């Protein structure tokens, strides 16, 4: 789903937006299968026993899947004419399957770069234990209002 078009003039530092994401085991299985990976060899994503083998309490979500969710938050927010320039993310903790996470974006700065309207955002996932497993910075170029 694509959000409405976002324009540079309509945003301010301090603005926030968020979605909710339920990291369901069946979605992880689907993601790994679509990636043509063998779930049997990736125990940490498969089940509790596989997770325990590598010292984890519960099965986790592949990092690239979490990154995809975070990226989609930004691309949905910016709209079809927005351009995601960079997305720099730090994986600080595993995302555990079964968690419900807030997927958040916060505008931290707006400026012009060679005449192009640029928005800097902090983006992160937050679980209900107050942890932020993924945190990062996205740089987006937005169109000006016609």
């Amino acid at each position, binding site marked *: 789903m694509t959000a409405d078009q976002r324009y540079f003039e309509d945003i301010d530092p*301090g603005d926030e937006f968020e979605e909710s994401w339920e990291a369901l085991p069946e979605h992880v299985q689907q993601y790994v299968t679509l990636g043509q990976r063998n779930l049997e060899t990736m125990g940490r994503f498969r089940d509790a026993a596989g997770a325990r083998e590598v010292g984890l309490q519960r099965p986790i979500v592949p990092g690239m899947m979490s990154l995809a969710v975070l990226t989609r938050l930004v691309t949905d927010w910016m709209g079809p004419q927005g351009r995601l320039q960079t997305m720099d993310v730090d994986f*600080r903790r595993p995302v555990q399957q079964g968690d419900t996470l807030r997927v958040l974006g916060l505008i*931290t*700065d707006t400026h012009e770069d060679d005449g192009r309207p640029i928005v800097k955002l*902090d983006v*992160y996932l937050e679980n209900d234990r*107050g942890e932020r497993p993924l945190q990062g*910075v996205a740089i987006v170029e937005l169109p000006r209002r016609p």
Partner: protein
Amino acid sequence: MHSHSTDASDDAGGTVEGYLKWIVARRKRGYHIDGIVLTEHRHFDPALHYDALAERYGVVVLRGAELETDIGHVLVYGVTPTLARHFDFSSVALPHRALFRAARDEGGFAVGAHAGRPRIGLAHHVEAGLDPDGIDAIEQLNGGSSDEENERARQLAERFGLRCVGGSDAHYVSAIGRCLTAFRREIRSVEELVHELTFGDYHAVTVEQTVAAAAAAPKEG
């Protein structure tokens, strides 16, 4: 009391100016944040100064360091050339007793960082048998820790009568000020910070608590 920037921490995405802009934006929304302390990982560069930025945005900017010891991470305020000479800041296993003692002897102050975290926090080591003798204060509220980990730190402080600071542990702009330390007296320099940590009255707070606290008694000058 605990923040990292792109200037010297390789896992940080926030710039110092970004932090200050964000604090100005937070103040407009009613939050009370006077200043920050940059505590870069395993690093202290005496040549770095942020006076111009601090003045431009009206935010106090002080500097310390987050060092790594045999009992987890330690925040050091009041880093002196002697301290930097005696300890290899790039080490990930500094002897904690020597570091806490040296910081005190050198006129600084050391705090056990994110005390409730597994492995890199003090509580984990105390539960394994460590005597926290010589440690006066811990970071009880840490913006990067879970609620459970911060509660574990609170229990540790209560058990051993440790003093408590709060720190955002910010690596990204929007995390700055998430957890803070409320001091009774105004602080404008590292020397004043160390004095207040050693002798003053302070406690850990969340940024939400600063809204109510801002309306409370004025600070002593």
